[in-house]
């Protein structure tokens, strides 16, 4: 899948590949022996965060898991 930053797609794919393997083979199995993808993630983030800034995409200032949603009464 492409990155929002045209120049970041290769970095993203490289990271995705590393992540998917770690997620399936280590994380889900409870293996906590370090994350081998940290450096790739950092490099990818430098690229994508710049693209987000250049495109003025408002990703900051929203709390994690979004605004609290109310439950309808029923």
């Amino acid at each position, binding site marked *: *899948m*492409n*990155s*929002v*930053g045209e120049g*970041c797609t290769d970095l*993203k794919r490289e*990271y*995705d590949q590393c*992540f*998917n393997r770690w*997620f*399936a083979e280590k*994380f*889900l*199995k*409870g293996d*906590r022996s370090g*994350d081998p993808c940290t450096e790739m*993630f950092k490099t*990818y*983030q430098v690229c*994508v*965060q710049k693209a*987000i800034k250049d495109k003025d*995409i*408002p*990703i900051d200032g*929203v709390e*994690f*898991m*979004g*605004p609290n*949603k*109310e*439950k*309808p*009464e*029923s």
Partner: protein
Amino acid sequence: MENSTKRKCTELTNAAASKETAYVGIAGTMVKYFSCIGVLKSSWDQVFIAFWQRYPNPYSNHVLTEDIVFREVTPDNRLISRRLLTKTSRAPRWAERYLPLQMSRCAYIMEDSIVDPQARTMTTMTWNISHARLMSVAERCVYGVNPENGIWTQIKREAWISSSLYGLSRAFQEFGLARFKSSVTKTMKGFEYVLAKMQGETPSRTLAETAKEAKEKARETALAATEKAKGLASQAQKKQYV
């Protein structure tokens, strides 16, 4: 409330099958609430793995880009991530006259998630960060082991749809809800496709055919919604002074 959790996502075309309510939100805007339950015939870990690999698939042509913009493993070993998606967003025809000419044809979508391998659950919260005044759709999904069949995965889906566009909010809500329902169908088909591929089954022609069917069905749903929304829009027009 409990009853709503028994509604199946696969019966979405049947209006009576899913839970729908409308209520007044904090800011006084009307909010439409929707919920249903979906089942994927794969184990929780397969589904969680597929969740990160589900784009592209034949049902996701509207998804243009995908990025992780934040990721961390918490001290209690949960994975928290924020994903940014760009999707094409077409406004309904009848609405074009009310919208700014330069309005972008793309929408940015935010998706936060928590994966908890100990509890075998994954919770996602997804919402649009573009065109939010026009229509705001927030969706929460809780993925977990299906209580009736431990080797299957259940998805409890809830959505909140609102619009603060004066006079047209109901029309946009109806449109938003119809589009949301057709997107749930596509999401589930996409998931099934990716899972089949992961499990080494070559996604067969049947799947391509199903894709075609889903597309046609979605078009029908959209048409019905357009008709309904048109009626609402013309009613609203009488009250609207721009």
